[in-house]
């Protein structure tokens, strides 16, 4: 009997320790402070063609991930794949079609400034005080008017007629013109902090971001805080790979660069031997802040990099032009680390690692060419 008791005690202790540690964890997540786009409008920068091209390239789209099987909510039947024999011409047409569809799937959610509250009084009529104890909400349901331009007004119990604020507008638009997937009541995963933190802990980032895209408008404070917390969590855990080749990688990169916290991402790129993408990231920073020491050089290099194919495709088949370009990239990144990096030693270490790895690749590809009878 006694031994059983003694056996039980430490187990209980372990349990309490585990629950405590999870409490501490959840406390730490609550301390992530969301930073919103509330002072300067990021939209002109985000939508400029250069930045869009850079962000799309940094997403590193992989078609097998873009067209992966996803949960089939909303689909009534799972379609079976069809296999066809195609001529080269037809195959090219199919690939072009697939690329077009991938571009559609990878379209990034917009990054815009937070909206201002609407407080526009249309008329005041104190003689109506006492008419009713509740508000009247009037919605113009004229056909063919867009949600953001719809007339929605309220008559308050004190007789004031005013334009509705964004939350009421959104609720009424959803009532009369429902959007598929959006709920009138906020889903519990966003309203309950514990559940939200559970999702973050389980790395369900894509799910959170997809749902936030449906549930909120991009200029809503709630959308910006949810995405901001998620991006910061990804940045802390360095799980960038989860978002790669999804539509959310671009906005995340933009967010991190805009709020001057792209050093972890830079480190991940250097450690993953993606030196060209690191240069693209510096170029992006130069576009957004203009504070990179060798900004012009980064821009020029980015222009040279963009037409080349993705780096990681054939690492052992380097041509001399590739080697030249990569060496230029290494120089550029060196200057960037000296001038702008906040994590100098780690970045330098990662760059050194890349150099050694790259030297091996160069030797390998030159040796291969020699063995095949090249010069």
């Amino acid at each position: 009997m006694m031994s059983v008791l003694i056996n039980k005690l430490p187990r209980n202790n372990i349990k309490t320790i585990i629950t405590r540690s999870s409490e501490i964890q959840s406390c730490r997540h609550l301390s992530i402070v969301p930073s919103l786009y509330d002072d300067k409008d990021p939209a002109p920068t985000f939508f400029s063609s250069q930045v869009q091209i850079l962000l799309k390239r940094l997403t590193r789209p992989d078609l097998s991930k873009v067209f992966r099987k996803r949960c089939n909510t909303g689909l009534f039947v799972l379609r079976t794949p069809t296999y066809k024999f195609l001529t080269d011409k037809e195959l090219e047409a199919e690939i072009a079609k697939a690329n077009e569809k991938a571009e559609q799937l990878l379209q990034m959610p917009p990054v815009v400034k937070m909206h201002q509250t609407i407080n526009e009084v249309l008329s005041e009529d104190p003689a109506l005080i006492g008419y009713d104890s509740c508000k009247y909400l009037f919605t113009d349901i004229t056909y063919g008017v867009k949600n953001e331009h719809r007339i929605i007004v309220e008559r308050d119990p004190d007789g004031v007629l005013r334009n509705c604020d964004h939350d009421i507008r959104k609720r009424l638009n959803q009532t009369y013109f429902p959007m598929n997937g959006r709920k009138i009541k906020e889903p519990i995963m966003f309203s309950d902090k514990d559940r939200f933190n559970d999702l973050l802990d389980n790395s369900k980032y894509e799910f959170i971001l997809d749902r936030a895209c449906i549930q909120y408008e991009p200029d809503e404070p709630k959308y910006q805080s949810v995405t901001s917390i998620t991006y910061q969590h990804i940045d802390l855990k360095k799980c960038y790979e989860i978002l790669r080749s999804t539509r959310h990688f671009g906005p995340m990169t933009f967010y991190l660069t805009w709020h001057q916290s792209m050093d972890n991402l830079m480190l991940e790129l250097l450690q993953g031997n993606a030196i060209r993408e690191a240069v693209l990231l510096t170029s992006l920073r130069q576009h957004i802040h203009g504070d990179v020491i060798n900004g012009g050089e980064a821009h020029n290099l980015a222009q040279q990099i963009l037409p080349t194919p993705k780096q990681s495709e054939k690492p052992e088949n380097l041509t001399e032009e590739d080697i030249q370009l990569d060496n230029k990239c290494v120089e550029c990144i060196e200057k960037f680390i000296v001038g702008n990096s906040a994590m100098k030693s780690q970045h330098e270490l990662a760059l050194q690692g890349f150099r050694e790895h790259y030297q091996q690749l160069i030797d390998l590809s030159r040796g291969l060419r020699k063995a095949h009878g090249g010069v």
Partner: protein
Amino acid sequence: MLPPASGTGQYFEKAAKSIRLIRQGCTNRPFYHISVTQRKRLNSQPVIEQLGSYDPMPNINNEKLVALNLERIKFWLGKGAQVSTPVAEILGLAGFFPIHPRSYMTAWRNRKTERENLAKQAEEAKTKENTD
């Protein structure tokens, strides 16, 4: 038998039209369509067109919801449709018409009854104090 929501009523060019509330809810749960119909037709008969809706029961946020298809309302007003008093009141509150006199009357009467209730309560409290 409730009429269909819109569009099946017979339409005569010259006959007088009226924009009115048509009750669509069930027992103890009123809900109204704002519809245009021939003036001589009963509310249970098919309407010409539905122009909006009005929910007289406050929702969970203490709001009454009104939907108005202003474009079509303007069209029917242009055709010379008569507007019934409750609809004119709603349109007045929405800021589309001038406020209907009956709204002012209701407000004034509500204020008056409230004032009387308050006075009555004060009097009762006073008598209670005196008896104690």
